[in-house]
């Protein structure tokens, strides 16, 4: 059980949720939590909703999320208020690789795929040189997310589909165009976002010879490795995104493989 500290709207349909746990927890960037959104007396909506960790405060056992209202579950979640209790599983999944030092790292996030990159950036930004490429549909979505990144000193490259904030286009432009500067040698890339973006990233990374990892999404019934609803095909066989994932080596993932 976690206590809701804040659950507020950042933009149209985009919410920031912060909860505190009683017990001590330890969370890695890229891990996720699975939130029960129906009330005690109800079985509808039935399943938990998986959300990536946006931020984690170790000292106070506080976890933050940023989520978009998509359907009934996230809408139900948006109705919780400060003081309510939420039945939350987690942290779940493997999380990003974080033992980098003095490396040039790209963090590429599209849409709500930006969410897990904030805690990652905070976590690895101290010892490494980060370039963040963040894209979203429009300013309404991107701006409130980007505002959080303002207090960590990183290089931000932004794009929106409609050009209302940052360059116009998808993340591919940010990585493709001169702004990235061919002369820089990047060591590793972290990617999170919609499948077409990851597909593009994968081939770009192959071309550029950059290795990295993706945080992937799939519908999850359990989040605990029990049901195989979240299987992802890889060159190393099927992986459960809730257990062996959600972060997998970019190279191994066979996007749309199943």
């Amino acid at each position, binding site marked *: 059980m976690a206590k809701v500290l804040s659950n507020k709207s950042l933009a149209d349909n985009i919410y920031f949720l912060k909860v505190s746990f009683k017990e001590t927890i330890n969370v890695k960037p890229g891990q996720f939590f699975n939130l029960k959104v129906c009330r005690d007396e109800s079985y509808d909506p*039935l*399943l*938990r909703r998986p959300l990536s960790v946006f931020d984690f405060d170790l000292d106070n056992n506080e976890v933050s999320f940023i989520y978009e209202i998509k359907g009934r579950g996230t809408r139900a979640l948006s109705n919780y208020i400060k003081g309510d209790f939420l039945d939350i599983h987690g942290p779940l999944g493997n999380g990003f690789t974080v033992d980098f030092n003095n490396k040039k790292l790209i963090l590429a996030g599209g849409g709500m795929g930006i969410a897990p990159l904030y805690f990652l950036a905070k976590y690895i930004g101290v010892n490494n040189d980060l370039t963040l490429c963040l894209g979203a549909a429009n300013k309404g979505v991107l701006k409130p997310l980007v505002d959080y990144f303002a207090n960590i000193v990183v290089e931000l490259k932004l794009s929106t589909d409609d050009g209302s904030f940052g360059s116009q286009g998808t993340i591919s432009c940010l990585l493709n165009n001169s702004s990235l500067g061919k002369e820089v040698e990047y060591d590793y890339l972290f990617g999170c976002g919609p499948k077409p973006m990851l597909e593009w990233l994968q081939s770009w990374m192959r071309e550029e010879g950059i290795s990295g990892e993706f945080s992937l999404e799939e519908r999850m019934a359990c989040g605990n490795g029990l049901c195989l609803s979240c299987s992802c095909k890889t060159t190393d066989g*099927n992986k459960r995104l809730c257990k062996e994932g959600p972060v997998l080596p970019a190279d191994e993932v066979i996007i749309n493989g199943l």
Partner: protein
Amino acid sequence: MVYNVGLKTSLGPLKLESPVMTASGTCGFGRELADFYELKELGGLIVKGITVDPRDGNPTPRIAETAAGLINSIGLENPGIDGFIKEELPFLKTVNTKVLVNISGHSLNDFKKLAAVLAENEGIDGIEVNVSCPNIKGGGLAFGTDPELVFKITDLVRKEYNGFVMVKLTPNVRDIIPVAKSAAEGGADALAVANTLPGMKIDIESRIPVLATGSGGLSGPAIKPVTLRLVYEIVKNDILPVLGLGGIMTADDAIEYLLAGARAVGVGTATLIDPYAPIRIKSGIAKYLKNNSFDHLQEIIGLAHKKGANL
């Protein structure tokens, strides 16, 4: 909390320390649940459906949520019988609870072969025969909708395998009684009632079915009234001992099945939402017995028939 009541039960020849089992496909091969509690706390573990050959399973999305329900089309992703024997059986031999292996086939021969291989191996307590898979030769309708095929499959499995055989029925029939009787005639020791109902969900944005396969099997609280009634009917006809399952989320749900005459219950979807659900349900049953001055689980099994109305 320990309640001083008897929870032992049996499904015919299979003796269980307690009545709550985990349902096939919702507890993997037991490893993940073992992180949450000792598996001996369970009445038994019914592992993921095994096929002759390894299977990658269906394309994703494999699940869709419906009102108080879950539709799945996992597509029997599994390591195949040989993979199971090699990779999973050693672990399952170490768990201190009854282990049933759920077998699935797309032809009669598949079932025969699976039973034969399991008969050669020590360490499992029985077979659950999943007759809900589509019969490829029979135009894709599930085997379990045809009493004759259910007889044949059960008979084949029975002849290959000496141990406990439970046939898991599909609720998607006009009348469950002939199917249940066929399983009994084929030599089953018990019946699991029931599997999922066929169901569909359509995404009104993309305007196609949510599941990559179009439709899948509906489980969860939504189906409980349907499967509970089937249990009641089969028990009324006194065919074979029944494991009741379908939508059990709480002890109260499980108690409904026990009152309907199930001798044990299976917990599926609830285990996905909360891995502790089977344990919670077990202790809730004990509490109910205590509060209602019953000393033993057996005292409540089938009570709904005593005063029950005719169906």
